[in-house]
């Protein structure tokens, strides 16, 4: 029997939506003919309580990894722990969800095990003894790469939100065998660890807002954002922007949408004076509805948007806010 180890990510014992997707990815690998069973890997005793639930997501067994240094997130220790499991159990594959932590832990584990690592896989196209044909994303999602992974153990992360994160019908009523593995870890493994946290005030944020009013070079200046801020405020939304805007210092980088900014999926994205470069588009393409406001009817954003208005944003946005105020009064 050969197993697929699926890293089950958590933050101090709390799982996120993406945590369960590594099991969905492991099931996709099984379906492609890699391995014969799934073993979930839960690192740190603080997450022991999560182990029992994982059978419903397809885990045949769960390994709880313990060590006194495995408290809170520590990328090096987590990576070493996974590498120890690779050495001890010779799995067919090791997978995680392609989050910041998932990719970081697998990078560590594959570096230690000295095997290849394919990040952000979207599809397993075919599997053979020591090689996989897979598809993964490049350019933050704007380009797909078909590649071959040649390795004694396949180390892969699945692109977040591509694989199933729901309980699987095949596993209804199933239970998973629970094991505990006491990790050895190097003396230095605990040097990279979270030592403190800074919590920002929550409220409406760019990633949670239902409406995002976003501006690009066409806004022209920092002051030019006033009508965008006003409209976003009226709609209980957030302000976003393009990289040109952050590079000019008109808005903070925390407002930037795109490949090197935030990935968002609001109900409505209003793109004002944004041309629609591919690196911007990958950040907002998951929006339910897109309205482009642009002086150029040929702009890429206009062609890709569900709705468009051609004209000067500085004339249009104040008129929209005035109209909202008129209807509300």
């Amino acid at each position, binding site marked *: 029997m050969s197993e697929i180890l699926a890293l089950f990510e958590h933050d101090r014992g709390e799982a996120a939506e993406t945590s369960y997707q590594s099991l969905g990815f492991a099931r996709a690998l099984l379906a492609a003919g890699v391995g014969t069973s799934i073993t979930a890997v839960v690192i740190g005793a603080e997450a022991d309580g999560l182990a029992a639930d994982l059978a419903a997501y397809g885990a045949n067994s769960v390994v709880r990894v313990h060590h006194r240094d495995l408290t809170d997130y520590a990328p090096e220790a987590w990576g070493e722990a996974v590498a120890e499991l690779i050495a001890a159990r010779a799995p067919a594959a090791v997978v995680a969800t392609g989050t910041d932590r998932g990719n970081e832990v697998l990078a560590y584990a594959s570096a230690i095990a000295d095997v290849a690592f394919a990040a952000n896989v979207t599809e397993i196209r075919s599997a053979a003894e020591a090689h996989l044909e897979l598809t993964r994303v490049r350019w933050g999602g704007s380009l797909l790469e078909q590649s071959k992974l*040649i390795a004694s153990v396949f180390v892969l992360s699945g692109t977040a939100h591509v694989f199933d994160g729901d309980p699987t019908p095949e596993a209804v009523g199933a239970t998973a065998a629970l094991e505990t593995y006491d990790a050895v870890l190097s003396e230095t493994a605990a040097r990279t660890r979270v030592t403190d946290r800074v919590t920002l005030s929550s409220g409406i944020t760019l990633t949670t807002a239902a409406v995002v009013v976003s501006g690009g070079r066409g806004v022209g200046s920092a002051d030019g954002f006033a009508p965008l801020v006003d409209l976003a405020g009226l709609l209980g939304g957030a302000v976003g922007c393009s990289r040109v805007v952050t590079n000019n210092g008109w808005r903070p980088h925390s407002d*930037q949408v795109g490949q090197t900014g935030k990935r968002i999926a609001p109900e409505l994205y209003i793109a004002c004076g944004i041309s629609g470069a591919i690196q911007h588009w990958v950040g907002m393409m998951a929006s339910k509805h897109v309205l482009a406001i642009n002086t150029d009817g040929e702009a890429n954003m206009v062609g890709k948007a569900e709705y468009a208005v051609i004209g000067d944003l500085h004339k249009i946005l104040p008129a929209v806010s005035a109209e*909202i105020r008129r209807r509300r009064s």
Partner: protein
Amino acid sequence: MPRILVCVKRVPAPGARITLTADHTAIDVKNLGFTTSPHEECAVEEAIRLVELHGGSATVLTLGPAEAEEQLRYAVSVGVTTAVHVTHPSLVGESDWDPQATAAALAEVIAGIEAADGPFDLILFGNESADAGGFQVGVRVARKLGRPIVNGIKSITLGETAVTAQRESTSGFEVYNLPLPAVLGVKEGLNLPRYPTLPGRLKSKKAPVATSTVEPVAGGLVTENFDNAAELVVQTTMLGTGEAAAPAIVDLIERLGLL
């Protein structure tokens, strides 16, 4: 005084859409400019700022085709002290080495520089390269050098014996404290990179670039070809022109239940 190294990669800067060559094995770069990955531009800026603050030196290193000298000179034009170019006859155009081969080459060159000139206190990588997005070269190099690394860094405070770094999380920031020498993978937003000055640009034209070559080790991730991600073809509904379209926009917002 700290010695800081930054590893950067030359990448094309595509516009509205990434166009592929007819055989789909590469990006068609005929009409494209090239740039440094944005995360790494911030790494370069951070290195310069740290040197301005603490003294010491900032070195920039790339593994890439002959043309990648352009990205090294750019880094010099904004204030980096030394540039190192590692190349190989197989690195032409858009051809790329596998992450294992890239990391082995970088680690070998870094070890060589350190043997000659002393260790780097801090080595900066991008969180991920803009094109390949392998999420691993920095970690592999750090492991080979036996140093700690944390990715996703958006703030750096360099001390005498340790570096404090912050990484963005869903609720704020996680704080890490790494003993030096250390390695960090940084993200855009760490700082706002400066533009080159005219004297900086002139200086960079004449600056020496150390060049060396290394042989690739075998790696296990072989890129075969590319495809554009599926694009939804939408029929754009025009809501009008200019401010006269305001009522139609508000109608839309109302229809979506967002008013």
